[in-house]
């Protein structure tokens, strides 16, 4: 049974659905049915996020297929992704939509 979920194919974070201790494999299933696993680098509390790929400082954090913020430092695959390494950024979404 998977211990994590990923919502959209382009998401770069997944959500732990059980507590996952450091070093343990987190497994999750993409919407197309493809199974994947990464080793988490630190303890991930239940329902918290971890990176499923390396996310360089300044690049977007993607969940639900949408931007939820920007990496405020380099984040490695399997690291906890939360307020300590993510900044909230207000985007002009009306302008982006009309482009």
């Amino acid at each position, binding site marked *: 049974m998977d211990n994590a979920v990923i919502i959209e194919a382009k998401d770069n974070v997944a959500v732990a659905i059980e507590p996952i201790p450091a070093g343990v494999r987190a497994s999750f299933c993409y919407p197309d049915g493809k199974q994947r696993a990464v080793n988490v680098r630190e303890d991930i509390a239940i329902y918290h996020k971890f990176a499923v790929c390396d996310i360089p400082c300044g690049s977007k954090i993607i969940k639900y297929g949408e931007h939820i913020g920007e990496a405020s430092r380099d984040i490695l695959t399997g690291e906890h992704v939360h307020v300590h390494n993510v900044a909230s950024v207000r985007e002009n979404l*009306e302008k982006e939509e009309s482009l």
Partner: protein
Amino acid sequence: MSKQTFLGFARPDGRVGIRNHILILPASICASDTASLVARQVQGAVTFHNQNGCSQVGADQQWTMDIMAGFAANPNIYGTVIISLGCENCQMDLVTEAIQKRTNKPFRQVVIQQAGGTLKAVEQAVRYASELAEAASMQQRQPFPVSELIIGTECGGSDPTSGLAANPLVGCLSDLIVDLGGTSILSETTEFIGAEHILARRAVNEMVRSRIFEIVHRYEEALHMVGEEVRHGNPSPGNMAGGITTLEEKSLGCIHKGGHRPIVAVYDYAQQLHDKGLVIMDTPGNDPSSVAGMIAGGAQIVLFTTGRGTPTGNPIAPVLKITGNKLTFETMRDNLDFDASPVIYQPGSMPKLTDELFELVLQTANGKLSRAEALGFIEIAIARVCNYV
């Protein structure tokens, strides 16, 4: 009985209630304690603590008036006893006129300063309320189609399970209600921030589309004008402890409550609804004031998703609590009505859970008490623009 009907109370204005309360309506904070005394004395009477109604700027007073009129007009109310002090800004004739613009249901008036103080006002109001309660008790429930239902949707004490399970489930229920000809309200403008472009794509026309952006920008600007920022306090400490990182993440989870149907209209706070289908109401993220706005708009029932578990109720409408967090469902069991966590742990369970939640909504419409009703929770809040004057 067909699954697609519920047993409700017909109102003279053509609407249908799922409760048959007498509302003891305090026109201002100065009438609130008196209203509580009256409501305690009469079976079937409900009230709340109105903290406003006086010393408010025009925009704030209007919201207070809209909530009061909307509560009295809500179809769950049989009739209303309005209690005012006498000297407040929300004068008895203004409140009465606002109610009569929305409904022709019975009402009575008591002005404390004219009655000769609290005890005489209580005597008069208890007499009026008990007469209304007696008349209400004669009314029988009758079957009505689900198209008569207006559901409000709300999320509070969110965590990542809200966006994974409880909100998508409520979204499926919202789709079902809309497909059956009913109405569903998506609320909480502050929790559209970062997700407004997704909602705008679902607008039925350009006017609705631009209104969605307008209410979000208007909200942010109103806070900037007083030097404040919507991100202050949002996500809340509880949201973050649960695993929500940014307001945008919270919003993207929040809007799932609105399901997948087109958005047919955008209403200002506490305005009376006249559209069927999925609509948006411009309300704060603050739960009790958002819930109050939707109930003033005519919602007979509110579906409230929570990750952390919250107690919010309302004197007029049942507020059903739904969590997708399996731990919260155990720890906050007394406050919760429905466990949506199988959405996460049993892939493919969504259709079955939607049916079960629909069944609970119908049972609640037919009279089953929500947890918040059984606990007697009545507190409300009214949205505000600025300080008292």
